[in-house]
């Protein structure tokens, strides 16, 4: 956490706003945040190539708007917000392309998971992905952030703009639904 804080301190923000140092500083940012952001996106969109594109778009957007980042919020929160927006936009586009109703679940995203060369999970992990993808998008995001990343609710609240109480409730419901999926499947 302390290493994340350095990206929001005044010196680092000043480096990001200096034409001579901003590229180097931003490369440090990408080096640090590419992994957590990648996994956040990947768990939502499943496909590696799509994740790679969305991750690049996330950093590109951050770079284009680096001038507006003044260090008032944490850099990580700002980047996560961009990544979340990119991800949700992508899923909405894919739904339209696959003719899935707007309120339909995202099960179509895991249809080809078994054949994916970048998925080496076992049967149980595949079933978990199927279970997770029956959840509504926001609930799925909450579950992924909490279960896989163990992100604090306070940070999730800042990223998703939802109260901590609502997030806890959402996570609780997600757990119930996943457990229900497994018991129905058995």
């Amino acid at each position, binding site marked *: 956490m302390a290493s994340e804080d350095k990206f929001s301190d005044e010196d680092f923000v000043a480096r990001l706003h200096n034409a001579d140092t*901003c590229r180097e500083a931003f490369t440090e940012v990408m080096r640090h945040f590419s992994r957590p952001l*990648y996994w956040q996106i990947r768990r939502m969109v499943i496909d590696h190539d799509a994740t790679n594109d969305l*991750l*690049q778009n996330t950093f590109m957007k951050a770079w284009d708007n680096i001038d507006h980042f003044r260090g008032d919020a944490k850099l990580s929160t700002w980047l996560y917000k961009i990544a979340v927006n990119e991800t949700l936009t992508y899923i909405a586009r894919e739904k339209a392309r696959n003719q899935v109703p707007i309120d339909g679940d995202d099960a179509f995203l895991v249809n080809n998971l078994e054949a994916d060369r970048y998925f080496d999970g076992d049967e149980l*992990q595949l079933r978990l992905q199927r279970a997770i993808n029956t959840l509504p998008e926001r609930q799925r995001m909450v579950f992924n952030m909490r*279960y896989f990343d163990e992100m604090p609710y306070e940070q999730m609240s800042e990223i998703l703009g939802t109260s901590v109480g609502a997030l806890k409730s959402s996570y609780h419901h997600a757990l119930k639904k996943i457990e229900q999926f497994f018991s129905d499947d058995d």
Partner: protein
Amino acid sequence: MKKEKTDILSKIGKDAGFSVPDGYFDTFAEDLAKKLPEPVLTPVQPVTRWQRVRPFVYMAAMFVGIWLMMKIFDGFGRQEPGIYNPEILAGFENDANIEYLLMRGDISEYDILTYENDDTAMAAVGEVTEAAFTTAEPGDTIMEQ
């Protein structure tokens, strides 16, 4: 049942089963950094002294305004009544003067009640009347009528 269900997640653990191409994260940042366009940065304007002190000045002005408003409203509610004029107060010692003042309309019965309930005014009357009577000559009136 609950235990059994929870066991499923604990059996799976935190590994979702996804993988990435070899060395993907090692080169990602450097590769993307090469593709970044020239940055568009606006020079940061230095913060002037006025911009620094402005919030404090505004806050002080607000308090001064509130204080002035309180003084104004307080002034409306507490007008000095004529009854506290020492000469009139002295006249209150004499019932005939009170009746005269009542008749003239200089004071009302409400003023008399207020005056009687005001310890400060009573004390003032004591001082004035005492002074007036000790210096009065025979035939003088305490209050001109």
